[in-house]
């Protein structure tokens, strides 16, 4: 088991180095950071001095190596635009993004499962058909459009919910949370729905399909023959057996929820890491771009690692294969 984990961790480091390398080779196409740092009428000599100070003229492999050596010590450099350490900036933005991602995932799970169960049990009802249609919209409409529609309806027309920001936040240690204030909850509703909508429809469709499958299984028929109530059969037996793949998918999707938060955060001016990243791309702020990509890469790697480990805990059959050297 230990050897398996060590092997996996080593692979994870390899993946992160690859992410860094790909990111660094892409930055050359992002444009010249100097032009975003100084005004247009800045003399060329001043530009050159800045370029020199930032080490932008060094060959890419040298820049990459320098970056990696510092990154290992959790030093991600100083943002070109903000003149602040990138690690501090990401740390101050991370709570907003993670909170949004968690609320969006919970929303997607709860609503998705309820809708999925309903449309599996009452397959032919009008509401189930409506839910199916809604899910099609959720899966095909682009995120920014949903966000803008929500803002237009609930902020501009009805005036119920704020159109931007995070509301009032409370600081607890190094973490800031909006979940302890009414304005924080009001502010998170629309971004969480926008971000979670895709996952919600995915989960709904998954639950529905799994449910329909399970309801045809022999043990459900036996349960009915034993005279159990519909409630016990549907929720005690069928739903429980449906949830295993649902939880797996939702867990694996968490990484992409964090990554896709970029668009939602931009639409709602949500002060998280995704917004920081988008603005960094526009301004060619390489230290932020690099650190964010590494961070998202790390999230994916960690989630996969945890899932792998959990599988071996859950399914003993996998354990024997682990001992075999690969």
């Amino acid at each position: 088991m230990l050897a398996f984990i060590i092997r996996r961790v080593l692979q994870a480091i390899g993946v992160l180095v690859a992410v860094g390398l790909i990111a660094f080779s892409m930055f050359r196409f992002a444009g010249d950071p100097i032009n975003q740092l100084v005004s247009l009428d800045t003399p060329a000599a001043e530009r050159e001095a800045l370029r020199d100070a930032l080490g932008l003229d060094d060959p890419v492999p040298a820049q990459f190596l320098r970056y990696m050596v510092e990154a290992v010590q959790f030093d991600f450099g100083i943002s070109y635009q903000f003149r602040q350490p990138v690690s501090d900036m990401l740390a101050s933005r991370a709570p907003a993004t993670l909170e949004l991602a968690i609320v969006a995932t919970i929303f997607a799970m709860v609503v998705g499962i309820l809708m999925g169960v309903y449309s599996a049990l009452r397959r032919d009802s009008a509401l189930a058909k409506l839910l199916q249609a809604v899910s099609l919209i959720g899966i095909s409409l682009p995120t920014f459009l949903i966000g803008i529609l929500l803002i237009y309806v609930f902020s501009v027309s009805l005036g119920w919910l704020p159109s931007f920001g995070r509301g009032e936040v409370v600081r607890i240690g190094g973490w800031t949370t909006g979940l302890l204030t009414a304005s924080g909850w009001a502010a998170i509703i629309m971004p969480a729905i926008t971000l979670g909508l895709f996952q919600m429809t995915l989960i709904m469709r998954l639950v529905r399909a799994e449910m329909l499958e399970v309801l045809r299984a022999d043990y459900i028929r036996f349960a009915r023959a034993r005279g159990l109530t519909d409630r016990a059969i549907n929720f005690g037996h069928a739903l429980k057996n449906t949830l295993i793949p649902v939880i797996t998918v939702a867990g694996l999707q968490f990484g992409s929820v964090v990554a896709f938060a970029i668009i939602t955060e931009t639409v709602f001016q949500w002060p998280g890491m995704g917004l920081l990243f988008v603005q960094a791309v526009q301004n060619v702020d390489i230290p932020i771009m690099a650190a964010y990509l590494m961070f998202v890469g790390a999230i994916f790697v960690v989630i996969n690692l945890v899932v792998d480990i959990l599988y071996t805990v859950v399914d003993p059959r996998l354990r024997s294969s682990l001992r075999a050297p690969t």
Partner: protein
Amino acid sequence: MTHRTSVLALASAALLGATALGAQAATLRYANQGDLKSLDPYTLNETTANAHLGHVYEGLTKRGKDLAIEPGLAESWEILDDGKRWRFKLREGVTFQNGNPFTADDVLFSADRVRASGSNFQTRVPADATFVKIDDHTVDVVLQTPNPILNAQWDTWYIMDQEWAQEFGAEMPTPASAETPSHAALNANGTGPFSITVHEPGIRTVFTANPTWWDEPEHNLDEIVFTPIASDATRVAALLSGEVDVIEPVPVQDIERVRASDRADVLTGPELRTIFLGFDQDRDELLYSNVEGENPFKDVRVREAFMRAIDADLIRDRVMRGLSTPSALMIAPELFAHSDEFERPAYDPERARELLAEAGYPDGFEVGMDCPNDRYVNDEAICQGVVSMLARVGVTVNLNAQPKAQYFAKVLKSGGYDTSFYLLGWTPGTFDSHNVLNDLHGCRAEGSPRGETNLGGYCNEAVDELIEQILVESDEEKRNDLIKQAYEITTGEFAYVPLHQQALAWGVADGVELVQRADNQVLLYWARKGD
């Protein structure tokens, strides 16, 4: 009351079925598309940053609502020794927000700091100017050569407190490559009408009225809450839903919608920036063209043909929705006294075709065009309009529209002026023609900053000579006459095709009064709310 609590108020109002208005007359909530990145006033020379910091810091001079130079931290000044010595009398009894008095030492310190490495404002103060402290409230600036526009940009050369900077180790402007963050990037200590009480970079900044300000405030605000909102649709929605009071800019396509709402209005006016087209007139063969062995843009007739083929009125009506002012000159009319003596050559595609034929291109030619797509108002759409107008006279333009990060990396000096035909915008930082002539029309020369942004390499020695004279001529009338001579040469040679001045568009909630200055600085110390 912050915008957060007002959001709370709005939310609870919705629940109670009541309205929560009034009660917040003293807080102005302002959203801009850009962040306030660093509070160090010498880090980034950009209109929005200068405007934000102008609430906290002040220069020796100020610019009024009509952009006229007014006394700021200097009460008065006089020019001695034939223009080689300027004497500034500093205002007495002014204190910085931390309580330190403002004295001549602070001016000397700021003059060194603004010219230090890492400052983006090095050109604000001539490198060879010496600052001499005469007494605590008198400073002399000794120059090598007379400079009639020495203080033209001093309204945004903000004076910092020497003691404060030394106390926190912020004696040098924060260079982008700094290993440690500077205290001055996150904190501010000026003499201005507001102080910064909360600054979360990229999230929000709170400006609180400074009760010890030396001047009489024109605003009636207690605080200003600034939030960056990058997305156009969200920024407009925030204004329409009453969550913010002022937004800048309002996207051109949303102006009518905001005007039609009963909550807000749009303030528009011509901006000082001139949008123009430039040609590569330097290379013997264009980089992006099917014409081989010669450069068609070296022929003045081809440049004139381009000028005549482009209908700036149509661009105004169709692309800019009426919100642009076609230009005859490369400088905004507000900034040059004799502007009205110049007229934009009329749109005349027939004449353009004739000129092209005379120049030896009866069937036109093909040329590549570089254009930014996220820098100026509707920049890409303007370029597309230009492409189709030139197609009518037989010139095929291959448009390469890119984000500004890539565009500027390609066309500027650092990219080797890699362009044949391009669109650019220019606001003279000094609000003076010398900057336009020197930077955009001066012959490029190795080792001199002159003409560095003259991307097409236009060059006429007569213009260069005039530029030298304009720099040192102190008599305003004579100086304006020299400028006029220079523009007569450059427009006669069609050095550029000026298109238009784009419009300012600020969204303002009802009940808020603002002063809109043509340089697009949103200065809320002139704002009044709720009276």
